[in-house]
């Protein structure tokens, strides 16, 4: 195993933390200090934790990662994302209940271009409804079968967007 290493970067409002190798107790003090600094930085509003090159995480490190989600949630920020292509690490994260607190992703981000493109959870209920409707209209336009399958959903959504919809 390779000795653990922490890499970090800030891109616009996103903080990226990458854990490399065998990350253990010895790095936890560094990580703890780093997190203090990040949460003091008011510009940051989203987090990506990249575990694509992580070989092992000890329990203390897991505890510190959990703190990112807890702190983000109490600061009213979106759920942090974890990139974990290693099935074994994902299993460990799941056993610790991380799926409730993080967005777990499989594929690593390879270019800085992609890093900017990570979607932010934002927008009003109206905005989300419009997006859902749009997505289903696109699905319907793809083939005849979809058209049938999603017809009723789209109808319901369209009705819901009307001003007289009971939810509005």
């Amino acid at each position, binding site marked *: 195993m390779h000795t653990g290493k922490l890499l970090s970067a800030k891109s616009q409002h996103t903080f990226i933390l990458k854990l490399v190798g065998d990350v253990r*107790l010895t790095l936890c003090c560094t990580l703890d200090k780093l997190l203090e600094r990040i949460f003091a930085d008011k510009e940051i509003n989203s987090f990506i934790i990249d575990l694509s090159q992580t070989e092992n995480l*000890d*329990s*203390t490190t*897991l*505890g510190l990662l*959990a703190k990112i*989600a*807890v702190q983000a949630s109490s600061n009213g920020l979106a759920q942090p994302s974890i990139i974990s292509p290693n*099935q*074994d690490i994902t*299993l*460990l994260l799941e*056993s*610790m*209940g991380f799926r*409730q*607190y993080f967005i777990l992703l499989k594929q690593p981000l390879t270019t800085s271009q992609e890093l900017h493109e990570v979607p932010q959870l934002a927008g009003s209920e109206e905005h989300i409804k419009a997006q859902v409707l749009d997505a289903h209209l696109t699905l319907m336009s793809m083939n005849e079968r979809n058209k049938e399958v999603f017809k009723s959903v789209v109808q319901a959504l369209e009705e819901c967007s009307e001003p007289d919809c009971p939810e509005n």
Partner: protein
Amino acid sequence: MSKPEQDVALDYQQLVEENAELKRSLEALEQDQLAAYQMQHRLLPTNLTLVEGFRLNYLLQPALHLSGDFLDFWSPQPNKLVFYIADVSGSGSASALVTILLRYLLKKYTSQGELSPAELCARVNKELLASGLEKHITLVLGCLDIPTKKLNYTLAAHLPVPLIVGENEVKELEGEGLPVGLFPGAAYKDYTCTFPEQGKLCMASDGVLEVLPGQGLQARQQEWQQLVAATGGDVETLLQRLANPQVGWPDDVTLMTLSGC
């Protein structure tokens, strides 16, 4: 003696003195650790105790003097038996202190009449977070009703998953749950099963997985289940099969079984 020779002799003398001082400090620290180890050890239940027709058998092997693993087994009320196995994050003295706090809290809550494992976990979770100790615990916590053999339990992210050894099969206890002391407001769930007649509940800390062959968590858990099936969950036999004198124990390793007699 020339001047440089005098300097060398002086340096040497100084090194000898410093070395002796370091040895004394190290001995004092070791004595201190040993005293703490003995204290932690005394807080463990007596091995091979029989309570209400159930026998406890365990082995707790710390990687250092002090262990972040802990277990207990007691009867807070007639016909009830409470037990747990816990693994505190990190290792050494700081984690060992948390095992003592956990023992204290669980004894206190159960003596106040609280016997729902899920509720106990929720209360410890709250207390641990409020303490700001920055330690979390994975836990298996159960409460057995002796006359009905009904087992109520909760799982708090503990690995390996506890195994029920019945007459013809070995299977994992169902359920899932969050670790204790990590997420504010975490909710836990009580699961129920029937303790098998003449059966056994076999638990371990994740140190066991580290000494098993196989790549990855899933493969090692399977190895563990096969090993338990092959040995019938007997602690001494398991220990013999797991021990590797060349490597020693890389982490705290704990084995614990509860057998119906």
